[in-house]
């Protein structure tokens, strides 16, 4: 089972994600924007998350901005970008930022669990 850090500006979505992920046996941390993601990663030490689930669009610091920042700091944790765009690929992710996958909204949790398992098995 994996440690997952979920970032979304909607408390409701965070509650949903936490509930579903915990029901699937994952350990869940949450953040409301990109800055909180960075703060959590800096504080985490040895307990670093295995997977980051970042919403592409968040106020203050978006998931994309957080992704750019953490890659610049050399943090290699796999990142899944959650996007309300039907095809997140043509959203805003620059080609040079390595992303492990896109999760379109509404979220297909069964597919998400499989992706997380694959990412943490590697």
């Amino acid at each position, binding site marked *: 089972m994996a440690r997952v850090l979920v970032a979304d500006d909607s408390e409701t*979505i965070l509650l*949903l994600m936490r*509930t579903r992920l915990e029901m699937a046996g994952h350990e869940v941390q949450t953040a409301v924007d990109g800055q909180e993601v960075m703060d959590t990663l800096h504080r985490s030490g040895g307990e670093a998350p295995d997977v980051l689930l970042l919403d592409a669009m968040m106020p203050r610091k978006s998931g994309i901005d957080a992704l750019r920042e953490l890659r610049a700091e050399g943090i290699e944790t796999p990142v899944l970008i959650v996007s*309300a765009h039907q095809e997140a690929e043509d959203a805003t992710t620059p080609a040079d930022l390595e992303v492990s996958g896109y999760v379109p*909204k*509404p979220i297909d*949790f069964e597919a998400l669990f499989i992706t997380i398992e694959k990412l943490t098995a590697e």
Partner: protein
Amino acid sequence: MNPSLANRLTIGFAIAFALLAGLAVIGVGRFFQERQDFENATARSYQREATALVRLAQGVHPAAARERISAERRQRRQLRANVSDDTRDTAILVGAGLVAGLIGAVLLFGGLITSMRRPLEELVDASRRLADGDLDTRVKVGGPAETAALGAAFNEMAGELQREAGRRDQLDRMKDEFVLTASHELRSPLTSVQGFAELLMLERERLSPKQVETVEIILDNTRHLVRLLNDLLDLARSDAGRLAIKPVPTEVGPLIEDAARTIRAQTEAGGQTLSTEIEPGLPRVRVEPDRIRQVLVNLLTNAHEYCPADASILVRAVRVGDEVEIAVIDDGPGIPAEQLEHIFDRFTRGDAGLTQRVGGTGLGLAISKSLVELHGGTIAADSTPGEGATFRVRLPAPTGSSSQSPSPTAAESG
């Protein structure tokens, strides 16, 4: 500003008229003057002849008098001859004036026509370009004042058209932006609704049958909303020119089998027959497989949803010239002519009695049409009410892409 055509004509005519009038006045004046001279000379001649006749009668120098008489008669003959010569000269003078005036007028008109022809031709060309949609078209403002004014008016009109098109484009962009943003914003609350409904369903054993049914209704409607949003997004992207396709040479057979597989579970459950018929050796088509599969699944879903339980649905692919035609043929209730006419319009759906059980968004065929046309193909529908409906998709099959694996496929399930 150049002198106007009317001004030039007026000046031209004035000059020609003055020229003619001058010549005529000179000619007529000369004629009267000569007539007067002739009459005076003739009168003097008669006077001298009369004096000579009197002398002859008096017998004074009769020989000289006789000679005088005949001399005067000769002189009068001479005078008469001179007068007719002068009349002829005057006529020639007037005639020359007329001819000169005519030549002047012809030269004037010729010059005017030449000076107008080029600007007019340019205007005709520019109008054609404008009509063809080149809104940057402008003409050089030149030539006589009339064509210059026409040119200026044309440019003004073209400018107004361009501004209008700009405003329309801006409105279109705003509309597309709005739909994209709205469907994006709607997705987050939908995620919550669907997610929590699914959560409830995970604990269905703790719910009453009534509650399970309620949650199922919520989920059904949420999925319908998501489908509607996706369709709206597709259409907005298509309108905004953002629906990009990446066509690759694609085998038609597997594409059709793939689409049929997607729907087969539903047709079998509904007791319908779904079969495919693919002509051997079909050329490959240049399409983005996912997008054409989307079109085929949409057509098959429609056939499945609008046909009764015992209906047959056939997908047939044949070569037609440089194209491959994929037809989805059913023997269902068919489509009335007045609905067939608007079948590819947005939010057009089949018979209202059927829409209660048919879960479409009314956008499927509009999107299919957009997608097929994006591939350079065509889509058409025909139907005989009571006997069924046929939807034909034609896709370009560039030459030299003939299939290397002509495997005649025929699958059937009931």
